[in-house]
């Protein structure tokens, strides 16, 4: 979830303020360049709304410029801030719907589709998706058998970030199995540094820990069922995954500050504890967006901070929990045809290549050559996402109703925090999770 990065209240509110200003200032990229491609859509203007700000927005505008160059249509980007669904809902109600929205969560795509706001994607886009994407990405864009969303930007949430110095001091190398990771963790902790820094004060890093273990241990099939709440949280597979997680939590020596310390550590601090100036831990698990936090500590991704894919648990496949931003076309938009043309353009490898070169982006599109990524770290994540093919699964808590999977102080976040405080009884935790889930899924 995008909101998650800004969880501390201070930042959240600053974010709101930024939203307010960003909403006002949509900028328009006029198609100034002469026709390199066709000018088939000259005179059209496509309005695009998305959560991106700052550098991401600048890079996406380069992609939009590419579209302008190819078709002659003008584009207009409007930033929605973090809360896409509210902003878009308001805009639709106010008769000012954008043509294309870049939606950051799969749950929101479903919500838009079931609200009847979306235009089914054209068969041309469908063909592109079928050809260039692993079917799983098409599935996540499909609601009730109809393709509504094109995943343009992907993210990888199965990356364990480590400090090469800490690994060198302890004499360990990136592990390939979960068991090996735990053995290495003990070695690191013997070397005098805690092995892991866990951002337990925010609940979502804990859900991500669980999801990676569960996806690898119980397999994608069970993962999908649990995400849809078709199997209960009291299922033996869940209890087993919780037991695995609990065995890690139980070892206070492996966690920076122990369990109590972890509960008082928020996500940015958890990164700082590994890559800051006075490191307290050797590794931290979170998604590819950790690189942003690393950079804000004035450290270099790739030399000061490296990552390895979350290792396979108990002989399963290594998990690839991902996410992404999907392009959807609103049926209340003023220029749907041009919007659809933009989505078709976004489905092409050329569009992805523009952002891949600019950095800070990975594409789920198989047809994007890995050589297009200028950043070696991103090339690796892109490779792991594309290689995982159909094994990619979206963040489970993002797919759940917000009351269960996305709210501080309640639901899965809170229950897993309680589990971190006292990991002694996985079965009981599973029971608590089930009763919270039952309530949320029914509501």
């Amino acid at each position: 979830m995008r909101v998650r990065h800004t969880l501390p209240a201070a930042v959240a509110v600053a974010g709101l303020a930024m939203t307010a200003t960003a909403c006002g200032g949509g900028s328009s990229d006029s198609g100034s360049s002469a026709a390199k491609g066709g000018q088939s859509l000259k005179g059209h203007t496509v309005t695009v709304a998305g959560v991106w700000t700052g550098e991401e927005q600048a890079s996406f505008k380069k992609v939009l410029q590419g579209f302008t160059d190819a078709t002659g249509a003008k584009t207009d980007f409007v930033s929605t801030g973090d809360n896409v669904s509210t902003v878009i809902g308001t805009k639709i109600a106010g008769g000012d719907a954008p043509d294309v929205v870049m939606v950051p969560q799969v749950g929101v795509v479903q919500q838009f589709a079931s609200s009847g706001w979306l235009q089914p994607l054209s068969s041309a886009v469908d063909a592109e998706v079928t050809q260039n994407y692993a079917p799983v990405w098409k599935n996540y864009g499909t609601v009730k058998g109809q393709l509504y969303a094109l995943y343009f930007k992907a993210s990888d949430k199965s990356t364990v970030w480590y400090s090469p110095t800490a690994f060198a001091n302890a004499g360990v190398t990136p592990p390939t199995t979960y068991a090996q990771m735990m053995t290495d963790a003990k070695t690191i902790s013997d070397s005098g540094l805690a092995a892991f820094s866990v951002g337990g004060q925010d609940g979502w890093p804990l859900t991500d820990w669980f999801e990676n273990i569960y996806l690898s241990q119980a397999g994608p099939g069970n993962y999908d069922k649990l995400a849809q709440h078709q199997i209960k949280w009291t299922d033996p597979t869940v209890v087993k995954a919780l037991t695995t997680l609990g065995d890690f939590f139980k070892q206070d020596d492996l966690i920076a500050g122990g369990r109590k310390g972890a509960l008082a550590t928020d996500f940015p601090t958890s990164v700082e504890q590994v890559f800051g100036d006075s490191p307290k831990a050797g590794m931290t698990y979170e998604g590819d967006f950790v690189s942003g936090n690393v950079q804000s500590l004035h450290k270099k991704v790739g030399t000061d901070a490296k990552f390895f894919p979350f290792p396979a648990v108990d002989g399963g496949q290594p998990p690839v929990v991902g996410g992404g931003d999907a392009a959807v076309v609103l049926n209340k938009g003023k220029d749907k045809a041009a919007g659809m043309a933009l989505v078709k353009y976004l489905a092409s490898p050329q569009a992805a290549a523009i952002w891949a070169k600019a950095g800070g982006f990975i594409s789920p599109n198989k047809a994007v050559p890995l050589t297009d990524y200028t950043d070696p770290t991103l090339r690796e994540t892109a490779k792991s996402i594309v290689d995982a093919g159909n094994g990619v699964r979206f963040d489970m808590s993002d797919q759940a109703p917000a009351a269960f999977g996305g709210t501080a102080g309640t639901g899965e976040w809170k229950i897993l925090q309680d589990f971190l405080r006292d990991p002694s009884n996985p079965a009981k935790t599973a029971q608590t999770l089930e009763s919270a889930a039952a309530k949320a899924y029914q509501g």
Partner: protein
Amino acid sequence: MATVQTALPPARAGGPLETRARRRSRRAKITAAVFALPALVLLGALVGYPIVYSVIRSLFDAKGDHFVGLDNYRTLFSDHATLIALRNTMVWVLVVPALLTGIGLLLAVLTDRVRWKTAFKLVIFMPMAVSFLAAGITFRLVYDQDPDRGVLNAVAVSVHDAFHDSASYPGARARQGAGAALEGDGHGGYTTSAAASPGSTVSLGMVGILPAKLPKDSVQAAPAAARPGSVTGTVFLDFRPGGGGRPGQVDSGERGLPSVHVQLQKDGHTVAKATSGPDGTFRFAKVPDGSYKVILPKSNFATAYSGISWLGPGLVTPAIMAAYLWVWTGFALVLIGAGLAALPREVLEAARMDGATEWQTFRRITVPLLAPVLSVVFVTLVINVMKVFDLVYIIAPGPVQQNANVLALQMWLVSFGGGNNQGLGSAIGVVLLLLVVPAMVLNIRRFRRSGS
């Protein structure tokens, strides 16, 4: 319409006196109604309608489609989280207004005769100019667990460390598993698992210390030489940077741990003490024959004191209350101070002339005369405390949010903050309203009395 009526033909001249008077009073009433109308419409739209709608909404389910009667209220009073919120709100109402009024009164009386009282009041009042949001963020930092960030824990840790010697190797622990020579002694220290006798030697491998944090005089560890009549040994860091050491044995690259307190025990009684040298070796000389255990007491390894967990489940509500006091003391002080300034001086002087002590004057004269002001401050604070939201939302970290929850926050959480159940949220809102009403009535009565 009222407006049309006022525009009716003027009253006929020469009518009976009574009728004219009645007519005039009626016209006055109509005029009053016309003037009041905009305010009434505004009040109705902004206050009346939302209240009525909330009451109605509270009788429907989450989506607002199905009438559920009093179900939401039933859920409210059976839901664990809401009950905690209700309890906390009660605690807030019981503690904070009384405390604030008391502190305000105390400060007002104390500063009343100080020369710089205006400056003093200004300083105390300043937090009122800070938004709750900013105050919340500030206090969250103040309460931070990390002594490098949270000022309160910085103080707590400095004070603690001033009275307690800190351990030389906080957090260090004995090598476990293969090569383990030590086991826990049940008190946080370590004891050798095997018995030692004169002439034997022990290797005590410790782990979990960053090589950079070793004392400067620490050198390469040396295996202790066995000596007849002595128990000797080495305490060393059983970890070679870069890995590759043999567990439990002194390898090259592994450094000794100097200044570790070592004890020799026989049947649970300490018979000798020693301290390890730069290479980690220690020696108990002239030991009578027998079987002994070598002990590394806890004092060597006690983890550093990490301060008080202000935002833990136990202290979080008092901590937030303290932040609230910081913001609102100025309000109480200024209002009560103004009341104090308006007191008739002659009464106070008369009391003093009659030989009343300062305490008696305060108890019997000042407080009773100030009672109206005090109760205004108190009631206003009760109403304000009931709707406290932002401080709790910002200061309480995620894991303890439920412990610090109050009704206003719960209402928001349930309706918008993820719960998306505006039916239940409205029900909480209505309960909150019912709780505020008595205080409101009290306040209005007082206004009326002081008005007449």
